[in-house]
């Protein structure tokens, strides 16, 4: 079994339901995120459009975080999920530095690394991840990539030419795919980040884990 995720960006409407469901399900502390939806506005007024991109751990086949973790706190489960053992983590932040997707953070409460686990605890009980359940438009598609009859495999087959991953040049082989993505949505360098121009919060730096 190789679990994977696919997000159809054509369907995503940026409601952030997945983000909130993840926060609640996993008790993610304030100022930290396992899953977030990034808004990027493209074009010049009046010819503008807004894009929405859910971003989470990519559960890479060749995960840099698993490789750099000195104590194997980050480890693979048999179903392909890159899981984290917070009791073992020493908080060196090597994984935070290694992850090319910015998907790992230091939990300010436990002072250990944390990230999306595809809701491994729910999956173990044959439940879908919280974000999948919460999505009102079924933009999040989750399942076994090795099973050709699974929804995600079928979706990939139907959209073969349009399936993308983030930063393929890193050689991480992500198990997280996007349909309908483009450079603006998937490449963080393809958009400006301007302080004070965000809708609800300043895009600025926060001390994480009590450190600057």
């Amino acid at each position, binding site marked *: 079994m190789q679990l994977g995720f696919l997000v159809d960006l054509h369907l995503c409407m940026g409601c952030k339901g997945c983000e909130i469901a993840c926060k609640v399900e996993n008790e993610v502390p304030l100022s930290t995120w396992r899953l977030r939806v990034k808004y990027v506005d493209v074009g010049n007024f009046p010819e503008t459009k807004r894009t929405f991109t859910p971003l989470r751990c990519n559960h890479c086949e060749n995960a840099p975080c698993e*490789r750099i973790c000195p104590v194997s706190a980050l480890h693979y489960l048999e179903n392909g999920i890159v899981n984290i053992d917070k009791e073992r983590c020493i908080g060196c932040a090597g994984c935070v530095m290694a992850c090319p997707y910015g998907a790992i953070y230091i939990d300010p409460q436990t002072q250990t690394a944390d990230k999306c686990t595809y809701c491994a605890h729910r999956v173990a009980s044959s439940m879908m991840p919280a974000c999948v359940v919460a999505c009102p438009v079924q933009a999040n598609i989750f399942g076994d990539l090795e099973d050709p009859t699974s929804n995600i495999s079928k979706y990939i087959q139907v959209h073969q030419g349009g399936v993308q991953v983030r930063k393929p040049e890193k050689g991480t082989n992500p198990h997280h795919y996007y349909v309908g993505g483009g450079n603006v949505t998937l490449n963080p360098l*393809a*958009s400006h980040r301007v302080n004070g121009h965000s809708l609800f919060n300043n895009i600025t730096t926060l001390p994480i884990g009590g450190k600057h």
Partner: protein
Amino acid sequence: MAHEILAATNAVVTLDVALPGIIWPWLVTVNMWAKSIGTGVIFMLFMLVRMHPNEVAKLRLPTAIVAFVFINIFLLFTLADLHQPFRMWHIFVHSNWTSSITVGAWMATIFLGLLSLLALLAYKKEDVKFDKVLLWTTILAIPVTLYTAGLMAQCTARELWQMPTESAQMILAALLSGSAFMILMGGNKLSEEAKNSLGVVLGLSALMAFIIYMAEYIFGPMKAEEVAAVLDYVKGDGPYTVMFWIGQWMTYLLPMLLIVLSRASKSESILKLAAILALVGLAIVKHVWLMIPQLLPMS
């Protein structure tokens, strides 16, 4: 590539979480700086034993102690940087051997053991045994110096550090700081010739490190757009431009000039000034190179 697209799309992030900021702070700078000195003085002692064997009698014990102290500083700051420092022992009981951190922790521990042995042998004035152990300590000092480059290369997110030049810079930093510290520590224990040898090592390592930094500065952006974006932080009115150039001048350019001057005027004071500048500047150079890739948004 991205900046050309940016001009066409005028894409702006209008809602996102805050950027995480600096993950590895100045503690890691001190870690790298102290390790360079700790291994560098061992390299220099080994060189002096080979080139000027009659002059190292009074340097064996001080060098072993200096290396011991700086490797302990390195380990202390490594520990201080952990968010869970009391779980440090997990590295030794749950070792993940694909991690440079694990490999480095084990090697540094063995290295510290050898340094303790060297200090003991120097204290007992057992020079023959000391020199034999010094050989193995010097050999181990090479991977201890290099493992940080391996660790930085494992940071897949930070393209700037994933260059082969990083390994060369680690060794050059050790040679530079080791020779500088030895010049300051040697004082009247060393002859003019020995000081000249150390000055040559300091000057050449400064020259080579500077050339590599400049090559990365100029050619790095051709490698990848991430490198180009990161190097923008040390170009123009970038947030680290001033610090970058202060570091380059203090660590490399001024010491090179001062070493030439000291040789021409046979002035030990000028040589010592070069050594001090190189030691202080190295911390600045390392700090800039540590910080700038962390400023780049990853997603």
